[in-house]
């Protein structure tokens, strides 16, 4: 049965349980009801008194009365009116009250043009301030490099605290003061600690909290080029709206996708975008480290490929299209191809894929028994956010990890060494922590759990009730896409070919085999056998610096493509802007004027990988065969092209089934006396994100994290591919006997999480 109520005589459909305002907003009929404190994801509070409507009772006994739409449950046949004078007076007078102390800031306020307060003020017709007395002022706080505060503009709607404390469950932000002097911020100046702090910018309906990174290169929203994109910084694949102007990327905003990120983004997703504008980003082809011309680099590469001694290396950091393009080229040339840089990572990807359909974040938020394995917040922050939403609904959370993470403090924490995780996961089916729930969900950080742990997870899932779901996360946007066409042993075969000198050239796409990718230690020992390495990438990595030829590629918002997220959801993104060199001053008159105003065109930025690969195929006279293969693979993996504005399409289960039989690499046994390695990450860390200055300035110090019972200032770790010396950082939250290092550390040592390691401690410097 369809439920409707009437707003000014118009039918508004609603779902039982919704309030009137929520239903009106959902129906796009909110022009008549101004509001502030209500937010679709934060609910009603009734604090601002702005959303008045007049309710007529069904009988004539009760006179009509004015009430708050956000606190009025929608019910069938309700008659509501806003077009009467008394309602309108209420709207206008309430907004005038809220505006009493509002500063004259619009021209210098970054919210201007996208300001809810501006919209509501214009909508209600409040245009003259009757109060002419002095205005209240506040001192601002320095909230770190990401969020800018201008407290004068507050209208006390409490959305910010409700987001920060209730939804994001952060602890370092709150409301201070009393009566009409309340203020929203931290106890003391300092960076906001929550990985979701950037959402304050979108949640606050005024310009109190604005984007500090955007602020430094600001442009009004009406001049921004915007479009649908997908976050390239982890496997969740949150939907984003990048905004660009004059050929440079300026900001990232959330794009509402109920199944995944809802109304929010994590700080990595929001603030890592300067990788596209960083000075270090390669924009010109390089040959032997020197800037070069497109055709020179392509000719060099084509002659390398003609020799027939090339290997191909794709990457989970690149999108599906480009990886398939590379795969198709390798296929045409009958050359070895791998999608990931080590056999361990290959097994990891395959085990991730073999897991049955993972829950969407919307489903995670509805779970009532949750087990989190590893530090979820630091890999896929929005997955951690979904867990917090489930916690608010009373879910029971158990965290298995080698350190007491922020999430672990919110649930039952089981301190475990990484090598013990696998056995613990294998026993979870009978564990009390999952008993008695309607909807159990298990979420793992894939790298901490490792391939054999993921295998154990799959077996556990088989023993759990049929509706139990599991998801595995990595901080790469397309591990699941890259791995689909990587058969067993691809990486080993590629490395073997190099060892046996069958190949002497490597064409890499978005990979960093000589820098921080998994197995980089092995690649470094193999590097002397390489005569040349060509890299197509958008960051200046270790590999980029030592590559024979470097071919720059378009950043993700500059091109179209497909990412496959942790659920196997294929999401499309479309080009939002064209990278152009920004001319800040037309030294030569006219050369700097934008096209829109009749000026000349700027030099364009680098094209996407598929363009380069296509050119290469042309030069090798393979274009037709290459295109045919590319289309075939694409159609096989993704028969139906997803719409960038839509929810994406899920990969069919038949494709997953191929991976259930994948071989498991042997795991190393660890004795309790041995030191064991775990991976340390922070929520803003990821290859692209590391080049974003403001976000990166918050990164914790590099070092080796151990329990404080170790008395040492530094230590040297010994691995099969090299030694690594790092300062010791005592960390009380760590489990004894575990050493946590970053991914670069693992790459240098040639080890993987859960491996035993030899350590020599140094007592003094």
């Amino acid at each position, binding site marked *: 049965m369809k439920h409707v109520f009437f707003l000014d005589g118009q039918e508004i459909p609603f779902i039982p349980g919704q309030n009137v305002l929520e239903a009106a907003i959902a129906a796009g009929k909110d022009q008549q009801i101004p509001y502030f404190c209500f937010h679709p994801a934060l609910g009603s509070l009734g604090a601002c008194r702005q959303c008045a409507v007049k309710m007529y009772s069904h009988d004539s006994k009760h006179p009509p009365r004015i009430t708050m739409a956000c606190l009025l449950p929608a019910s069938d046949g309700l008659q509501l009116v806003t077009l009467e004078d008394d309602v309108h007076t209420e709207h206008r007078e309430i907004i005038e009250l809220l505006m009493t102390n509002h*500063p004259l800031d619009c*021209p210098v306020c970054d919210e201007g043009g996208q300001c809810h307060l501006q919209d509501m003020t214009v909508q209600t017709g409040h245009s003259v301030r009757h109060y002419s007395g*002095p205005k*209240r002022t506040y001192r601002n706080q320095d909230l770190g490099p990401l969020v800018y505060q201008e407290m004068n503009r507050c209208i006390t709607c409490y959305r910010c605290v409700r987001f920060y404390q209730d939804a994001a469950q952060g602890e370092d932000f709150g409301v201070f003061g009393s009566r009409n*002097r309340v203020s929203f911020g931290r106890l003391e100046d300092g960076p906001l600690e929550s990985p979701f702090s950037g959402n304050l910018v979108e949640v606050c309906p005024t310009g109190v909290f604005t984007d500090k990174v955007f602020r430094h290169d600001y442009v009004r929203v*009406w*001049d921004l080029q915007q479009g649908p994109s997908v976050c390239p910084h982890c496997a969740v694949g949150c939907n984003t709206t990048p905004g660009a102007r004059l050929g440079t990327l300026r900001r990232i905003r959330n794009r509402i996708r109920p199944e995944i990120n809802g109304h929010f983004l994590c700080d990595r997703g929001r603030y890592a975008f300067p990788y596209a504008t960083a000075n270090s980003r390669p924009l010109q082809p390089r040959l032997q480290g020197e800037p070069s011309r497109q055709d020179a680099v392509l000719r060099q590469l084509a002659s390398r490929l003609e020799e027939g001694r090339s290997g191909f290396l794709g990457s989970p950091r690149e999108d599906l299209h480009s990886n398939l393009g590379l795969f198709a080229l390798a296929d045409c040339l009958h050359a070895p191809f791998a999608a990931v840089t080590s056999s361990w990572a290959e097994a990891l990807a395959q085990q991730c894929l073999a897991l049955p359909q993972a829950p969407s974040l919307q489903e995670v938020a509805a779970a009532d028994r949750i087990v989190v394995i590893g530090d979820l917040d630091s890999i896929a922050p929005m997955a951690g956010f979904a867990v917090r939403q489930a916690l608010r609904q009373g879910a029971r959370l158990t965290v298995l990890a080698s350190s007491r993470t922020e999430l672990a403090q919110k649930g039952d924490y089981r301190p475990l060494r990484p090598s013990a995780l696998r056995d613990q996961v294998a026993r979870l089916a009978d564990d009390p922590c999952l008993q008695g729930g309607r909807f159990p969900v298990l979420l793992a950080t894939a790298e901490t759990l490792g391939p054999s742990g993921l295998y154990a997870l799959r077996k556990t899932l088989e023993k759990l009730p049929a509706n139990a779901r599991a998801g595995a996360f990595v901080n790469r946007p397309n591990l699941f896409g890259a791995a689909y066409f990587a058969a067993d042993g691809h990486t080993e075969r590629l490395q073997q070919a190099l060892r046996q000198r069958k190949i002497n050239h490597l064409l890499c796409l978005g990979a960093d085999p000589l820098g921080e990718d998994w197995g980089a230690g092995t690649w470094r020992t193999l590097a002397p056998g390489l005569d040349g390495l060509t890299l197509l990438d958008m960051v200046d990595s270790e590999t980029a610096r030592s590559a024979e030829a470097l071919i720059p590629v378009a950043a993700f918002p500059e091109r179209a493509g497909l990412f496959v997220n942790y659920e196997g959801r294929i999401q499309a993104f479309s080009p939002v802007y064209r990278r152009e060199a920004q001319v800040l001053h037309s030294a030569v008159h006219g050369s700097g*004027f*934008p096209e829109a105003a009749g000026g000349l065109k700027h030099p364009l930025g680098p094209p996407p990988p598929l363009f380069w690969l296509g050119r290469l195929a042309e030069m090798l006279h393979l274009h037709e065969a290459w295109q045919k293969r590319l289309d075939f693979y694409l159609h096989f993996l993704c028969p139906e092209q997803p719409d960038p504005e839509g929810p994406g399409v899920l990969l069919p289960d038949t494709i997953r089934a191929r991976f259930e039989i994948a071989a498991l690499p042997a795991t190393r046994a660890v004795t309790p006396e041995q030191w064991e390695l775990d991976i340390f990450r922070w929520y803003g860390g990821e290859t692209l994100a590391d080049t974003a200055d403001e976000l990166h300035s918050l990164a914790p110090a590099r070092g080796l994290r151990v329990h404080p019972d170790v008395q040492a200032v530094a230590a040297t770790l010994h691995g099969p591919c090299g030694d690594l010396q790092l300062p010791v950082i005592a960390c009380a939250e760590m489990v004894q006997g575990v050493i946590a290092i970053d991914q670069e550390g693992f790459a240098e040592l040639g080890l993987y999480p859960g491996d035993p390691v030899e350590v020599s401690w140094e007592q003094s410097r």
Partner: protein
Amino acid sequence: MSVWRNISELGAGLWTTLRQLGRTSTVSYPEEPLNLPPRWRGRPVLTRDPDGDERCVACQLCSAVCPTRCIELQAGERPDTRRYPLTFRINFSRCIYCGLCEEACPTLAIQLLDEFAFSKEHHADFIYEKEALLIDGTGKHPHYNFYRHSGVALQDKDKGEGINEKTPVNVRSNLP
């Protein structure tokens, strides 16, 4: 009778003409300068506030309202967070002197002063950069200073020091 009337009217008309002999109302522009009324709309300039600092805060309202889209600017930020236009260009081969930018400008920075006829050899020379637009004066509004009215703090103006502002509240106090 009508003949006499016709003659006298002819005479009156002739007298009106003859009366103008010796008077000149034609200005031999461009040799002679024009005496333009103060509200004349010539080409836009950027003015300074009474303290001598540039008025424009790079709010982009002028470029948004401009019907020929001939204004283009990029905001910059000083260390004390004061906003200013890093670049500001107007393409005068497109400007139609409509004055909408002046009307939209909340800081009275952009003003249409009296220069209206200028010629160049190349179209591209009509693109005026900020240096060519910014004048050393307040233009038609000698007293207005936007930043004294707005609530943001600057290097030389703390919170509460603006016009019509109270001293900052003590948020640590819970006293009624």
